[in-house]
């Protein structure tokens, strides 16, 4: 097997040692129970009827034939089930904020009228089995009034464009202001005046479905006024709170169970409409209800990364100093602004004059939302393609250009530590950047051309609050209660390792209880790469407390136990805390058929101290591969004439398979900056940020043409070479 290289810190007793997951056996024997694997007595199966039109008003729905079908137990539509889905709509990136969800003008319900995208929910049925439910859907008669639709964000802002909402297609923010998101630093016009040359280009990126292997499902079960939901969620605490609020319940009236879930990458945050639909059907039918999304339901009814258009203008001096960066961006949010629509990247440069304006725009495509590093991969692709082009036009090595222009700690804004020089320099050396890159892009003779590209990043690794409980009994068995769900990165194992390290016991003496809101305290939710840092720090503090109790009063005896809990709220003392990374890739482009083959891929990351080398290695490799898929293949294409989605599935969106996979070399530079649990930082999102930029730069280096549109599919390469 291929191990990552670790530089800088020695392993501790448990932390830093390659460790098999605590639940690995369950995962390889089929014993692991995912949401759809539960079955309750009398359980009904549910299906959702979805809009066949990109934009339509429902004049009338007739459900009588569906209700009359033997075996059908409940049919709900907007007429008899008006439930707000708070997390599904305008949040402006403030999706964790209740006042925002209450204040928004653009409220989303589980069934909406008008319908605003192909796949918008129209009705739902619960029946004795899934085939009867499916038959019942076909018996629902809907009278649609088709409305004009718009698919592209820039077109949606044109005068006279079809209106997705009555207030216009520029999305409101969480205060109901209909304005672009603007950040303005220094004086960009003065920066352009100072420049020797100005560079301008338009970049665009595609919708990337999260496409997690487990389609959305929810099993709802009421006992009196208490709801139990078996739901694949990235955060049981957030899911509980959201569901309680949407259904008018108190948090304690909702129990969320999620011990295993089949990936999410950001689209299983919070609660989902599936949770609310299953709960509503279950209430109405008086029986447990299992709602199962098909793959197509999931592709259209959940969400993916927002597509963007980015206009850059860069000012630079002939010596390679960047004097101004301006970006005007448009993010296609679909008809509901579920998340921010952010386009990040320019802030990794030190240039003092930076102006960014992003318009999140409503369209009649399916909803956009968070995907692993929500604002980053497409933004880093845009800005680092732009900078790569500037470097080559000025005759400067892009690595030298970066070392000259990248953001560094200042007296005004110190960092907890800073590793970017070492990360980039080591990566360049390991990759042999100097000899692999083409000083003159596209200079290979013949139709098969090689080239190399590079990208770099820093990304938030801030600290924050979360909770943990640790217990020890007289048999010296430790139990750790944490509200994590383990979406794939291995959080149960990581939490157990942190506890074992701090308690000074072997990992097998610590049982980890997770994934159940009735048994576990609050955890931040497995999004934003925060679990290791935040919940891990709470685990560490609870274990310290327990150690102190043991020191004070000795080990418990008989049936006694000692219990410690912690909800720390740490700070970084005003310092910026970041993780760092650099990717180097060499590609071979066959310009006759437009294919791109990856020859060598080198990653170097500083994510603080690595808790579990095995799972950390695969966070980097897996995320990098997802980024490669974004760079080369993935898109949700729509037919402009009909507004119908065309690539709702794995084959059609051309997801990577085993045959597409290159070796990914991983190096971790390990540092303990004194913050977070044992110095651990962000890892889960780090790998995906850099792959599209590095790959796009490598392709341009190979063929000598700048590729300004993702995915860099075969047709675009052929067009570039024509």
């Amino acid at each position, binding site marked *: *097997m*291929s191990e990552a290289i670790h530089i800088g810190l020695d392993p501790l007793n448990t932390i830093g040692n390659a460790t*098999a997951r605590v639940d*690995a*056996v369950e*995962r*390889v*024997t*089929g*014993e*692991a129970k*995912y949401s759809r*694997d539960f*079955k309750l007595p*009398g359980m009904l199966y549910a*299906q959702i*009827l*979805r809009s066949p039109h990109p934009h339509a008003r429902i004049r009338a729905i007739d459900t009588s034939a569906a209700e009359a079908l*033997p*075996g059908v137990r409940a049919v709900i539509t907007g007429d008899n089930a008006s439930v707000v889905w708070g997390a599904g709509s305008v949040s402006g990136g403030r999706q964790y904020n209740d006042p925002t969800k209450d204040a928004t003008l653009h409220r989303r319900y589980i069934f909406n009228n008008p319908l605003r995208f192909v796949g918008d929910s129209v009705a739902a049925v619960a029946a*004795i*089995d899934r*085939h009867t439910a499916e038959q019942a*859907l*076909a018996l629902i008669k809907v009278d649609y009034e088709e409305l004009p639709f718009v698919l592209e964000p820039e077109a949606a802002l044109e005068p006279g464009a079809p209106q997705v909402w009555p207030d216009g297609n520029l999305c409101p923010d969480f205060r109901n202001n209909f304005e672009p998101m603007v950040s303005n630093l220094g004086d960009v016009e003065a920066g352009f005046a100072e420049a020797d040359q100005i560079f301008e280009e338009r970049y665009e990126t595609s919708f990337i479905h999260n496409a*997690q*292997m*487990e*389609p959305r499902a929810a099993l709802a079960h009421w006992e009196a006024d208490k709801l139990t939901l078996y739901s694949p969620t990235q955060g049981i605490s957030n899911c509980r709170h959201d569901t309680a609020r949407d259904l008018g319940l108190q948090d304690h009236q909702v129990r969320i169970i999620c011990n*295993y879930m*089949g*990936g999410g990458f950001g689209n299983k945050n919070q609660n989902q409409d599936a949770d609310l639909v299953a709960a509503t059907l279950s209430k109405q039918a008086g029986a447990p209800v299992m709602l199962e999304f*098909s*793959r*197509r339901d999931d592709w259209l009814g959940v969400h993916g990364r927002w597509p963007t258009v980015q206009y850059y203008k860069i000012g630079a001096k002939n010596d390679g100093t960047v004097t101004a960066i301006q970006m005007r961006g448009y993010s296609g949010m679909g008809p509901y602004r579920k998340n921010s629509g952010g386009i990040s990247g320019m802030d990794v440069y030190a240039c003092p004059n930076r102006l960014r304006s992003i318009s999140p725009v409503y369209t009649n495509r399916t909803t956009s939302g968070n995907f692993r590093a929500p604002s980053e991969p497409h933004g880093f692709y845009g800005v680092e393609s732009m900078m790569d082009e500037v470097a080559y036009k000025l005759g400067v090595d892009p690595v030298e250009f970066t070392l000259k222009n990248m953001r560094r700690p200042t007296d005004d804004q110190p960092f907890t530590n800073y590793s970017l020089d070492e990360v980039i320099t080591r990566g360049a050396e390991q990759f042999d950047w100097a000899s692999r890159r083409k000083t003159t892009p596209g200079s290979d003779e013949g139709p098969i051309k090689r080239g190399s590209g590079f990208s770099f990043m820093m990304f938030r690794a801030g600290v924050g609050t979360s909770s943990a409980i640790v217990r020890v009994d007289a048999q010296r068995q430790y139990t750790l209660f944490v509200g994590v769900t383990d979406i*794939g*990165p*291995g959080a149960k194992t990581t939490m157990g390792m942190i506890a074992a390290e701090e308690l000074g016991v072997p990992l097998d003496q610590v049982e980890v209880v997770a994934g159940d809101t009735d048994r576990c305290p609050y955890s931040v939710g497995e999004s934003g790469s925060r679990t290791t840092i935040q919940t891990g720090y709470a685990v560490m503090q609870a274990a310290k407390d327990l150690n102190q109790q043991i020191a004070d009063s000795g080990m418990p005896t008989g049936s006694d136990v000692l219990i410690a809990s912690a909800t720390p709220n740490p700070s970084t003392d005003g310092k910026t805390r970041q993780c760092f990374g650099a990717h180097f890739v060499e590609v071979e482009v066959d310009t006759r058929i437009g294919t791109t083959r990856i020859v060598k891929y080198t990653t170097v990351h500083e994510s603080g101290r690595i808790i579990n080398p*095995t*799972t950390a290695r*695969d966070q980097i*490799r*897996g*995320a990098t*591969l*997802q980024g490669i*898929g974004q760079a080369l293949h993935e898109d949700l294409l729509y037919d402009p004439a009909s507004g*119908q*989605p*065309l690539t709702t*599935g*794995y*084959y*059609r969106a051309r*997801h*990577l*398979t*085993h*045959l597409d*996979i290159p070796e990914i070399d991983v190096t971790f530079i390990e540092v303990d900056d004194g913050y977070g649990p044992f110095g651990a930082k962000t890892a889960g999102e780090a790998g995906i940020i850099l792959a599209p930029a590095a790959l796009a730069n490598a392709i341009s280096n190979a063929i000598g043409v700048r590729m300004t549109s993702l995915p860099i599919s075969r047709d675009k390469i052929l067009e570039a070479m024509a």
Partner: protein
Amino acid sequence: MGDKNKADTSLNPKQRSRREFLENAGTTAALASAVPVLGISTAQAQSDTESTAAKTRIQLTVNGSRHSVDVEDRWTLVEVLRDQLDLTGTKIGCDRSECGACTVIMNGKPVYSCSQLAVWADGAQVTTVEGLASGGQLSAVQQAFVENNGPQCGFCTPGQLMTATALLSNNATPNADEVKQALVGNLCRCSNYNAIVEAVVMAGERSGGAA
């Protein structure tokens, strides 16, 4: 599953052909497969909630145990495994032959159980992920998955394991390229492909064919 009720602009011929199978092929297969049952376990739905659709009795051997199941013509093998036999280790990722999460070994070959009608499995020998370990011992490929982080979210893992097991029974010590060729029909959106291939190669090297 509800696709056919919608304005589906599907262009995937695989999906189309499977749907036609489901709609047209079931009856014939059911007639041919009605067989008597003697003294073996029978899985039945609760009578008060049972569908009135016609059923056909099939017999199949799953992980060494014989079962007799009354199946509707429209049921797929994965539905029988999960819903009737409570073998939920086999996952449904797409239900249309795209992802491989539902892979089981049927009569020695890896198949997508979402795209096998249940009536076609009459008389079949089926192995699911629950049947890989024996006597509490993980198989070589399961053990390699444990050690080399084969599962991330774990949802594709049963399918990857079944295809890998079928590969190892035909090629005891595959190299990485052979593993990739064999497993191309098993997608992993965590994109843990490198670790999966490494684990399968490792299992072959260790057991030299005893997997």
